[in-house]
């Protein structure tokens, strides 16, 4: 990318692969529209752009296992589900069939493993984790896409609907500013004093 060695999104490409790529490369034309939508205040959703209420509950439950809520906020508090719902009707539209198929497959797995259960979202934590491990081991494209979509929903600019109140960024210690001054961290403290 350089020409210059712009590189190292190679990390990403390597671990991500084609199924995930779409989640980390919003289309150029999307920007204006997406940024124009202000974040809705936190409240229970009554309507979704892509999902049925049941789908949304399952997708949110998966995201909440990928980045769980514990002492600190997780995918749920970041409103990752809002991000995914909106993206599947926008820049990630081409993955709608993957999600439809993936959710149908998930339901089948749930009903096979736990006859009589209502949905993935209704399972308890251990049951959910077991199902997701099985999904991961089956090299499910849907699960791979969910990993990428959850990371994007957790850490993209809040303008896209997730990372609500920047909880994702606060979690890992990232801050988006236009100006920083040394010292930047621990190891350059002395340098900055001497400079």
């Amino acid at each position, binding site marked *: 990318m*350089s*020409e*210059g060695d712009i590189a190292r999104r190679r990390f990403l490409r390597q671990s991500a692969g084609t199924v995930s790529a779409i989640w980390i490369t919003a289309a*150029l034309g999307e920007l204006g529209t997406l940024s124009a939508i202000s974040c809705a205040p936190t409240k229970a959703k009554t309507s979704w752009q892509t999902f049925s209420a049941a789908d949304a509950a399952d997708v949110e439950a998966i995201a909440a296992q990928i980045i769980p809520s514990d002492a600190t906020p997780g995918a749920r508090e970041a409103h990752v589900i809002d991000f995914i719902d909106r993206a599947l009707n926008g820049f990630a539209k081409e993955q709608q069939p993957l999600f439809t198929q993936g959710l149908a497959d998930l339901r089948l797995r749930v009903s096979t493993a736990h006859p009589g259960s209502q949905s993935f979202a209704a399972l308890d934590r251990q049951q959910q984790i077991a199902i997701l491990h099985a999904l991961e081991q089956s090299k499910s494209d849907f699960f791979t896409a969910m990993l990428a979509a959850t990371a994007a929903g957790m850490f993209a600019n809040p303008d896209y609907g997730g990372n609500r109140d920047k909880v994702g960024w606060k979690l890992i210690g*990232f801050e988006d500013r236009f100006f920083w001054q040394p010292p930047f*961290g621990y190891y350059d403290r002395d340098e900055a004093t001497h400079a």
Partner: protein
Amino acid sequence: MRKSLLDTPPSTLFAPSDEVDFVIVGAGSAGGVMARELSQRGFRVVVLEQGPYLRAADFRHDELAIGQLAALTNDFHSQPNTFRTSEKDVAKKKEVIKYGRIVGGGSVHFTANYWRFHEIDFIERSRKGGIEGSSFADWPITYADLEPYYTKIEWEIGVSGVAGANPFDPPRTKGYPLPPLPIKPAGVLAERAAKKLGWHAFPSPMAIISQPYRGRSACVNCGFCETYGCEMNAKSSTLATMIPEAEKTGNCEIRPLSYVRRVETNAAGRAAGVTYFDANKREIFQRAKSVVLCANGAETPKLLLMSESNRFPNGLANSSGHVGKNLMFNGGAFAGGAFEHEINGFKGVVTSRVIQDTYELDPKVGLAGGGGFDFRHDLSPISFALGGLPIDAPKWGAEYKRMLQEYYTRSVYVLAHATSLPVETNSITLDPTQKDAWGLPAIRMTFAEHPNDVKLNEYMQDRAIELLDAAGAKKSWRFSRDPWFPQVHLLGTARMGNDPKSSVVDRNHRAHDVPNLFIVDGSSFVTSGRGQPTMTIQALAFRAADHAARAAKGAALS
């Protein structure tokens, strides 16, 4: 992007029917320099750029849209590539090439790591001998020929660094115009590690200005460099430097959204201009006395191959058969380390210290080439979450979350930049079946690493781990050493040489077969150097412009 800016028509100076002095294909690292150098000498220049003409005001801190380059680079969906590892195979669709598709090209979004080549990079074949399975050769020019241009570009665009700080630096006639950018926590660790190993860490030479320079503001350490466009114009891209200076002459027209499909030739076998698609996919023929290709190491050979004719049946400027061959990337081995305290790599430019003690290896190591290291952190949060943790870390769940929390601010990556040997069968050709959205053949890449490069990367990765351990990492880890795709350093595919039978351009970038055709970009490289090709691409462009101007003045071109 704001639509209005994309739609703003650039100032029109010339009509396609005007026979301008030079038409330049590609407004990137090399094209921007050529445009400025030629227009400042009074030549009438048209620059055709595939991508849009964005400005600093269009760039933003948005990883999803810009960080991952959807906005600034070629789009695989409209311009697919195909890939195979051997000429015997049928190539399959794969995203293997990434380049800046924007006015300013790769210099807009690059890291701005700005290394000169060393003397050895030009003469390694004769100094150290040939290598089996490689078309390794000397350049027809030496470091001494290029040195004035390395110095020139440092001063023309603004480069920050400390002359003499690197004991392995090649000789230079002048210091840097600007002091180095602030040392980062990772830079302090690089110094510690180097000291412990008896090596030498020095301030990274960066094409980012540390102080106000020629009307541009200094870097404010916002951290959005690699993959992003600089909102401050502190990164010394051709968009921020050369291109406005070219336009100011009144002799240079930048025409964005113009995708060249063919170099046209006349009955005498000279270049007569180029045919391109405009934004509405209309074909337009721009007449010119000379043509300069600065389209990058993949698009340039593609264009030459597409420009075949009865007179040039194997593609233009290809009597040697070397167009598209000898593709090189630069090796790059990656290692990560986690430290006890905060690194906060997201603040400031990507890298502040470089180590080049391995630029030339001890013969006892038994490997050709060499390389250097930088300590860096270049992952925005989404990229980090998907690929920044140790490769054995969980990909989801409570422990994954805990590691994201601990590692984001405390990780350092050591990137080894290394030699990639030229191999004749590693190539860019036209895919026989796959087409792009304009109906042009897709770029087909054939590539398999030379065994030396595989071992060299392994060797460099071992040293990277040693450096991290010496710096006091609590944990260090390796990333995959397989060649990364898409590749960004695209080199060697129209190599320079004195012999028209084994090279495409002469020592002054003039095509052996077509006297009014110049080829100036990564494709001219004979060897890969050790990484960071942009500075050399730009120094070559300054030098090529001198020769092209002289040739044009002598009217030897048309």
